[in-house]
């Protein structure tokens, strides 16, 4: 099941071409009430069942990063991604992005990543990287605001230019957007959109929040 926003990512991992595909509209037809079914979303399942951990080539890598407690926390993840040069720049990978990614994947609510969650994270990062590289033509590891705008739209979100500008400004550093901030933005957009949509069953594009639920929903992301 391919989700918009990833290009080649989303279907069965084996055999998918690595290049970024032009983004199609959201799954299931035109967006309802201005937001997509799954824009920029993260698919929940892999096609193939996981291998036995010890036979998995990523297992050694995982245990090295996870250390004594056998799970990866935000700081360990940051170190790992910085060393792996995932952001494509010389600056450390954002700790806040690591925290957000762990929150997104942390199904057993430990605040840390187990091995399966770790593998999912790497797959998601690859998908995001493909998408990002489509816009980062000069391979600087950054994109410009208008390219970020295109990237967000290509994920299927329908957001006003005003809202887009606010969002992009929030994630810019010196007028450009770095990969790790791009990831944070994508993850947050998805989480907030899902939270909104869960409360908008009638798809009216508008939700009436109580203060307590508003705070709980927006503070926990």
């Amino acid at each position, binding site marked *: 099941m391919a989700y918009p926003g990833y290009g080649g990512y989303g279907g069965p991992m084996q055999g998918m071409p690595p290049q970024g595909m032009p983004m199609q509209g959201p799954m299931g037809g035109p967006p309802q*009430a*201005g*937001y997509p079914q799954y824009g920029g979303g993260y698919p929940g399942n892999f096609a193939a069942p996981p291998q036995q951990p010890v036979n998995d080539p990523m297992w050694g890598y995982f245990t090295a990063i996870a250390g004594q407690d056998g799970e990866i*926390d*935000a700081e360990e993840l940051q170190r790992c991604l910085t060393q792996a040069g995932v952001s494509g720049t010389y600056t450390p990978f*954002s*700790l*806040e992005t690591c925290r957000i990614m762990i*929150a997104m994947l942390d199904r057993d609510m430990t*605040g840390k990543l187990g091995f399966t969650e770790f593998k999912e994270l790497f797959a998601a990062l690859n998908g995001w990287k493909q998408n990002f590289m489509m816009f980062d033509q000069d391979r600087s590891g950054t994109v410009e605001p208008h390219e970020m705008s295109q990237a967000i739209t290509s994920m299927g979100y329908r*957001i*006003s230019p*005003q*809202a887009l500008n*606010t*969002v992009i*400004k*929030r994630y*810019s550093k010196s007028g450009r957007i770095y990969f790790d901030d791009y990831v944070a*933005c994508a993850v*947050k*957009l998805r989480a*907030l*959109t899902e939270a*909104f949509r869960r409360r*908008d069953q009638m798809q009216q*594009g*508008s*939700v*009436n*929040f*109580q*203060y*307590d*639920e*508003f*705070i*709980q929903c*927006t*503070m*926990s*992301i």
Partner: protein
Amino acid sequence: MNYPGYGAPAGGNPGGYGGAPAGGPGFGGFPSQQQDPLFGYFTAVAGQDGQISAEELQQCLTQANFSGGYRPFNLETCRLMINMLDRDTSGTMGFNEFKELWGVMNGWKQHFMSIDRDKSGTVDPQEMNQAVSSMGYRLSPQAMNSIIKRFSFQGKITFDDYVACCVKLRTLTDVFRRRDQAGQGMATFPYDEFIQCTMSS
């Protein structure tokens, strides 16, 4: 000015700030910047462009030992604080904004130290719960649990995460309150506005 269900007043005591800026009359009271003892400090931190970015603020607060631990002060918290005070929406802080922040930080630090009874530099979830209530916020145990979990690291809350939590709570409460003119504790958000407000906080 207390809103039902919100508790926290707009910005004075005992709301999020908790204290007058250290070093004299309040904001805008100094006749000239150059005479202000804090100005020298500001220019050292701000560097060439005369404005403080999130990274420069992080360095400054880490060196001033606000983080109280072995980790640098949280960069995301710095960004949040700049965002909170950034009246000219430049994404950086000028001198007046910096002064305001310095005063506010001292207030927060005092408050934090009063909750951190064992002086460990961190507070536990229960202390955090009391701190948030004492600021005037009325939130369900469920909401509080989500918030505390989000801002904890290894089960405790450090000062910079405590600050991040206070700033976000205040900003989001303001966002909500502006749409709840009737003070009923309910507000309607169209999707686009919801995204704009919550993504930028």
